[in-house]
């Protein structure tokens, strides 16, 4: 029987590109190899420790409540005692910027932990994002309550003095780490270390300085080293490890390696015993700033709640709401969450004071308290809320409130929070950026010396790149040989690298606030964005530790709505807020039923627009369903059509029931009644698992977690047989059970809980109402909030004009920087385009034009002089045809403007001289044709108010018997048609069996469907066309949704040249185009998707 041993110097893959095993694998492997503890220490970071902690915690929970799946095999090998007594200690490996050898540090107790995290914070804040600059003096300042293991470097000459210094600082808390790395001179080196240890009275501690759990991971570690060093394997040479020895070894093996120093093995046990710290001890308390002195948080929350409730319901708080509030407050008291609610309320109030619109979303919308405090907008009087969804006593998880703010002004809120709580008490949560197929294959490809082309082909082989696997079939599709050994190898390693953390980044807006010092809880680091700091743990980590976070998110539509409210106040004298929009407005629902929703929040996508006429929303709850139904969850679960059929009454609403002996026949009615027996929301799927498949609370909780995190995609399959079999056993139809599970799986990748859908539906309704009743205001606000949403300015303007809005051109005498509203002669509001729509005009110049416009500009020179504009700006204005009020069309204006000197804003005298420029004879320029104007409009403004390009080209197309979009839509189902238009959007949703293309001409919009097989044939045409001719058959649904099913596609982009010989209009694809702007639901917020390429060379 060998002496017990614990590996105390174990790195994980959070030592980025050094460690080659997940923290959980490290901990569990140590357990399996018979060690009785492990110390996780990554390079200047504690980012990975929570995962190891959570893995062990899970394992222990499973021990009490054995699950199916992953850990079963592991549990079978180990006895419970070993698992219970296994000790995880967490710390960090300090790598210094000076000559000091690495020191592995473990906190001895809670104080030590705080000292360690503050030490790391110091190093982090000194350096750029992703780096940590530490000096041995920093450690000297913090050396109490810390246990240190010095890891000697190759040369030992300076080791004794280092040890002597550390021993002075922390007598008795310093160890000397000894390794036997099989370098040939191991024994001699060990002898020297023993000698130094004896002389400095530092105990020797045996370790293997592990980089990975199993020796089989050496090759992956080599690949990671190459990525880190930016070299290929062939070049890496001695930068790689010489052998595979740095894995976790059994106590036997360690004892054999250290036969000459058995005391070093025993020392690991002394060390373990000295550590009295576990992550359990991280007690965390919410700040009490918002509570006035002398008040207790719960009382204060209750007082605020009742006060606001009275304001929300001026006619008296409805009984139902009052009851809800009482229940919620009681539970909040029990769980001691009052401070959390107060903090959120505080943030919302700040936003209100600053005039920033905000709205809570997510499960918080289930709380009546949140509603009366103004955090959320879903009225409990009108909706059934499930407070338990938000907070429950059984689920020991902190509440999670997400609040959306106007995207242009969210930074103000963030900086306010930093300012109010201080950087040491507030921090953004981290997001662990992990290897995805695209990034993995790119970097691994480089390591294997594949050319950029090949890796790009491999990386580009999947649409959307969103998957956890790289199927070989895709490789073949790219024209590469999957049997090629190098490519196979690259794919093999890329697969293994998937899910490995690559670096930490800041979360989009998740804040953690603390009453005490946050930097004594977790290290804080600089983010890439200036003025942002974030903590090292991500949202799963803080969940596992029970920390609470507030999500401060940005939403473009809130910016747009706030601008709408501003304009309503200014132009219509209406003072409105989100809560003041009249409910149940007939005209608004009529508009939505027509699918007339360009620019409206959420329901503006092609798929949503097609759904609107089918779903025919008539009340708020219909919008909730509308928002939730066009999602991968319900679509994959095949729930959409059954719901529509039941809604239209063509299918009876039935509730599947269990066999009579297993329970009441209507057990599902309660769960599914609101959605006519079809599960559409996340919580329904959960409820279903609990009611129909009898999942226990713990099991349901696990299922929910598997659903919530993409990372756990692998684990969700464990639940498949569990759910389907149990439902089948209880007498449910197996197919129904299977489809329920499919839906749960769909939610795993993207699904909506009901409360979330309700919050969004509220914004859908508000934006629809404004669009319906104030189209000019809506279009103006939408244009001024760009970039956001699906549509390019051209479509927004076109839509506004179709709704009767008078849209006026950019003009130096009328426009401002932003688009603005003008009162037309008939009393309606007209939309005047602003300088922001014109290419090449800068914001401050736009403002200067307005400021200097004390009287109208009377000539080109007058404008240049008074607004101090340089030649380039003047030319941009002329090019945008903004001189019409000076009786100059684009050509004349350009001719005049180009004569002005090119330099900086004209000096006074030079400008005066410019006026004196000699009179010129008339250049006799040819007149600019309409086609030329349209083309130039598209080049400078991306839209034209003068005509649609297709209108100019119409005679050509008519001669070819190509009909307009409107004419195609008027044909009967099955008719053959040839339609053409400029391409707005191309999308390839879901499985990619069909490609949807939207064409536009002067009469309207036409939706094309291209099946994948046809696409392969017409790939070039589909991808390259800006002006597309499609031949095919019309398909018309009963609701009059028209699609043209393509049979032949012809690229007619060349015809755009016919507008004029020299100008070709730049047809801008919509922001939603997936083929040019792939949008990954998780990787990028639509807000962050890059703005369209500004121009393209067509030569």
């Amino acid at each position: 029987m060998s002496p017990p041993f614990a590996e105390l110097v174990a790195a994980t893959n959070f030592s980025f590109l050094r460690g080659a095993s997940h923290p959980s694998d490290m901990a569990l492997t140590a357990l399996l190899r018979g060690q009785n503890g492990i110390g996780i220490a990554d390079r200047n970071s504690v980012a990975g420790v929570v995962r190891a902690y959570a893995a062990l915690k899970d394992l222990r929970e499973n021990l009490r409540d054995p699950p199916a799946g992953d850990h079963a095999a592991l549990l079978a090998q180990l006895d419970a005692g070993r698992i219970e007594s296994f000790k995880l200690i967490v710390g960090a490996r300090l790598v210094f910027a000076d000559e000091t050898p690495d020191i592995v540090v473990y906190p001895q107790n809670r104080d030590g932990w705080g000292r360690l995290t503050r030490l790391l914070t110091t190093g982090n804040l000194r350096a750029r994002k992703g780096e940590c600059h530490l000096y041995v003096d920093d450690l000297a300042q913090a050396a109490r309550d810390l246990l240190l293991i010095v890891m000697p470097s190759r040369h030992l000459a300076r080791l004794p003095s280092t040890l002597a210094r550390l021993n002075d600082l922390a007598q008795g808390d310093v160890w000397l780490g000894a390794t036997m790395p099989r370098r040939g001179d191991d024994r001699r080196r060990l002898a020297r270390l023993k000698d130094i240890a004896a002389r400095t009275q530092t105990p020797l501690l045996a370790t293997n300085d592990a980089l990975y759990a199993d020796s089989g991971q050496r090759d992956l570690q080599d690949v990671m080293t190459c990525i880190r060093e930016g070299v290929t394997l062939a070049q890496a040479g001695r930068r790689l490890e010489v052998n595979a020895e740095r894995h976790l070894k059994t106590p036997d093996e360690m004892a054999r390696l250290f036969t000459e120093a058995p005391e070093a093995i025993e020392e690991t046990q002394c060390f373990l015993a000295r550590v009295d710290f576990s992550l359990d001890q991280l007690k965390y308390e919410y700040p009490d700033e918002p509570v006035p002195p002398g008040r207790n948080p719960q009382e204060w929350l209750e007082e605020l709640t009742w006060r606001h409730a009275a304001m929300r319901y001026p006619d008296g708080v409805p009984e139902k709401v009052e009851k809800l509030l009482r229940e919620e407050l009681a539970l909040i008291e029990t769980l001691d969450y009052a401070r959390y609610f107060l903090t959120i309320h505080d943030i919302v109030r700040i936003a209100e004071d600053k005039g920033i619109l905000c709205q809570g979303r997510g499960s918080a919308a289930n709380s009546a308290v949140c509603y009366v405090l103004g955090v959320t907008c879903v009225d409990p009087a009108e909706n059934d809320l499930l407070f338990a969804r938000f907070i429950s006593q059984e689920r020991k998880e902190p509440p999670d409130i997400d609040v959306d703010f106007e995207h242009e002004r969210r930074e103000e809120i963030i900086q306010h929070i930093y300012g109010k709580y201080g950087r040491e008490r507030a921090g953004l949560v981290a997001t662990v950026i992990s290897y995805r197929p695209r990034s993995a294959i790119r970097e691994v490809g480089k390591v294997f010396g594949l050319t950029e082309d090949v890796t790009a082909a491999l990386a580009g082989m999947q649409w959307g790149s969103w998957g956890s696997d790289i199927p070989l079939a895709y490789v073949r599709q790219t024209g590469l040989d999957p049997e090629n050994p190098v490519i196979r190898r690259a794919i093999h390693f890329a697969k293994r690298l998937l899910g490995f953390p690559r670096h930490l980044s800041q979360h989009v807006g998740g804040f953690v606030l603390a009453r005490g010092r946050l930097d004594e809880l977790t290290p804080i680091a600089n983010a890439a964005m200036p003025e942002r700091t974030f903590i090292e743990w991500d949202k799963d980590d803080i969940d596992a530790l029970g920390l609470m976070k507030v999500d401060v998110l940005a939403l473009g539509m809130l910016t747009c709505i706030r601008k709408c409210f501003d304009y309503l106040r200014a132009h219509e004298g209406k003072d409105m807020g989100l809560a003041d929009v009249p409910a149940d407005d007939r005209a608004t629902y009529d508009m939505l039923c027509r699918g007339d929703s360009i620019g409206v929040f959420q329901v503006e996508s092609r798929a949503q627009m097609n759904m609107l006429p089918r779903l025919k929303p008539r009340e708020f709850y219909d919008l909730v369903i509308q928002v939730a139904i066009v999602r991968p969850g319900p679509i994959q679960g095949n729930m959409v059509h059954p719901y529509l059929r039941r809604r239209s009454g063509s299918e009876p609403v039935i509730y599947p029931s269990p066999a009579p002996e297993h329970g009441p026949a209507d057990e599902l009615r309660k769960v599914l009644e609101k959605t006519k027996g079809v599960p559409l929301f996340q919580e329904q799927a959960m409820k279903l698992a609990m009611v129909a498949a009898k999942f226990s609370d713990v099991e349901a909780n696990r299922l929910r977690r598997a659903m919530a995190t993409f990372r756990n995609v692998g684990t969700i399959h464990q639940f498949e047989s569990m759910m389907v079999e149990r439902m089948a056993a209880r007498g449910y139809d197996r197919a129904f059970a299977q489809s329920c599970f499919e839906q749960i799986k769909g939610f795993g990748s993207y699904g909506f809980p009901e409360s979330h859908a309700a919050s969004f539906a509220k914004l859908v309704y508000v934006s629809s109402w404004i669009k319906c009743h104030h189209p000019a205001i809506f279009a103006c606000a939408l244009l001024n909030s760009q970039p956001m949403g699906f549509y390019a300015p051209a479509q927004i303007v076109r839509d506004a004009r179709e709704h009767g809005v008078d849209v006026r051109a950019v003009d130096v005498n009328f426009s401002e920087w932003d688009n603005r509203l003008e009162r037309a002669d008939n009393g309606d509001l007209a939309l005047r385009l602003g300088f922001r729509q014109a290419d090449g005009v800068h914001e401050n110049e736009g403002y200067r034009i307005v400021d200097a416009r004390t009287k109208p500009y009377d000539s080109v020179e007058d404008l240049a002089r008074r607004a101090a504009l340089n030649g380039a700006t003047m030319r941009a204005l002329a090019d945008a045809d903004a001189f019409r009020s000076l009786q100059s069309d684009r050509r004349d204006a350009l001719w005049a403007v180009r004569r002005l000197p090119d330099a900086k804003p004209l000096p006074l005298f030079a400008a005066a001289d410019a006026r004196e420029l000699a009179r010129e004879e008339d250049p006799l320029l040819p007149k600019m044709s309409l086609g030329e104007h349209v083309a130039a409009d598209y080049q400078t403004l991306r839209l034209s108010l003068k005509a649609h390009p297709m209108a100019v080209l119409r005679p050509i197309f008519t001669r070819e018997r190509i009909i307009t979009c409107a004419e195609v839509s008027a044909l009967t189902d099955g008719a053959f048609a040839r339609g053409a238009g400029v391409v707005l959007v191309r999308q390839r949703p879901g499985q990619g069996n069909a490609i949807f293309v939207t064409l536009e001409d002067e009469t309207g919009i036409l939706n094309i469907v291209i099946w994948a097989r046809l696409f392969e044939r017409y790939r070039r045409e589909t991808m390259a066309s800006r002006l597309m001719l499609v031949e095919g058959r019309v398909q018309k649904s009963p609701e009059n949704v028209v699609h043209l099913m393509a049979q032949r596609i012809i690229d007619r982009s060349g015809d755009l040249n016919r507008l004029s010989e020299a100008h070709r209009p730049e047809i801008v694809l919509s922001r939603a185009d997936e083929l040019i702007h792939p949008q990954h639901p998780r990787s990028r917020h639509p807000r962050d998707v890059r703005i369209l390429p500004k121009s393209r060379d067509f030569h």
Partner: protein
Amino acid sequence: MTLADAKARAPHLAVAQADAEADERLMLRLAAFCEQFTPLVALDPPCGLMLDATGCAHLFGGDAALRTSVLQAMARLSFTGRAAVAGTPDAARALARFGAEGVTPPGEDEIFARPLSIAALEAPRETSVALTRAGLATLGDLADRSSAALTARFGDETMRRLTRILGREDARITPLRVLPDCMVERRFAEPFLDLSAIEHVLRPLIAEAMGLLEKRGQGGRAFEARFFRTDGAVRALCFETGAPSRNVEALLRLFRLKADSLADPLDPGYGFDVIRFGVLNAETLAQSQIGFERRDAQDGDFADLVDRLAARFGRERVLRFAARDTHDPLRAAAYVDAAASPSSPPGAWPKPEPGEPPLRPLFLFDPPQPIETMAETPDGPPMHFKWRRVRHLIARAEGPERIAPEWWRNAAGARRRTRDYYRLEDRDGRRFWVFREGLYESETAAPRWFLHGLFA
């Protein structure tokens, strides 16, 4: 269009990296080839050549015939080209690239250039957009308007270019090579193939050139013979004399020496079209002699040795060791060309630890010698081993130094094994470097042992 765009449209698109340097090399070769038409040839990027044919065209039967000969010669080399002959370089460029090619009669450049699109100005994008916005589509549209008004709007540069294309202003080209002081050539109706008869061609050519020099009272110091091959390759042999010379036989001798010393001998291939002899540098014959240049003997003894050995045995036979950056002792040393610059070795020799004995021996067996051993499992050192029928009893051992195989070099299937190296000392004090191949149990049941080296 980005590559990604292009690939989205045509996924199987073959992609080659643009190699501007190779392009330029090719253009330089073509330029040399074109020197058979006129010695004044300039590069006209991108991918263009400018030939100053002033006074040469009649040799080919006029402008049109010259243009045809050039295009035909290019076609023989499998190049398609566009060519125009015009009064000024800019006009010729514009017509060749943007116009109808062909030959412009003298003085009619403007007539031919007027219909050209304004693209022919090759102005910056911003300027050409501005011109089209003004409705000015052709050079003629510009030519008709007041040049002061145009210059104020579109800049001097564009207007200068316009006047040059229109032939209103001339510009000279800068040829690639300076014109020799004196030049004579011989054109062959049938390609010249017979190298042995080359002196029969050269002698009269040299004599002719010397005659020309004599009239000027000069002698040549640098000479060049150029051979234009039918396939476009051009070979030039240059030689110099210490003093100005007009001695035909001496020059022929120098030529012969030069030709014999060529590493890559003169090859007529399918024959020479033109042979040209030029005097690159001529001086008055009376000038005093200056001393021969001499190389400093101190400098580069080693390089000289390598050169001499290489000259005698061939470069590929003179090699030296270079360190390779690898853990694998079998691959740690590589042979490299001794003459190659030692400044960039593939790796550096590992530095020994101060005060530590060397881990590696100086003498290595290649391949390692199999030995029979008795050793402790799993990874103990040998207690004794037998090599060349002699048993060595081990007195001291150190190790193992475990060196894992370079897995990425394995062809599929051929698995190499981890090696455990030991430094051994037998009872007689001899030191050995041995290794066990394969980790016991995890890689092999019966590891084999080898002697890899001897410590001195």
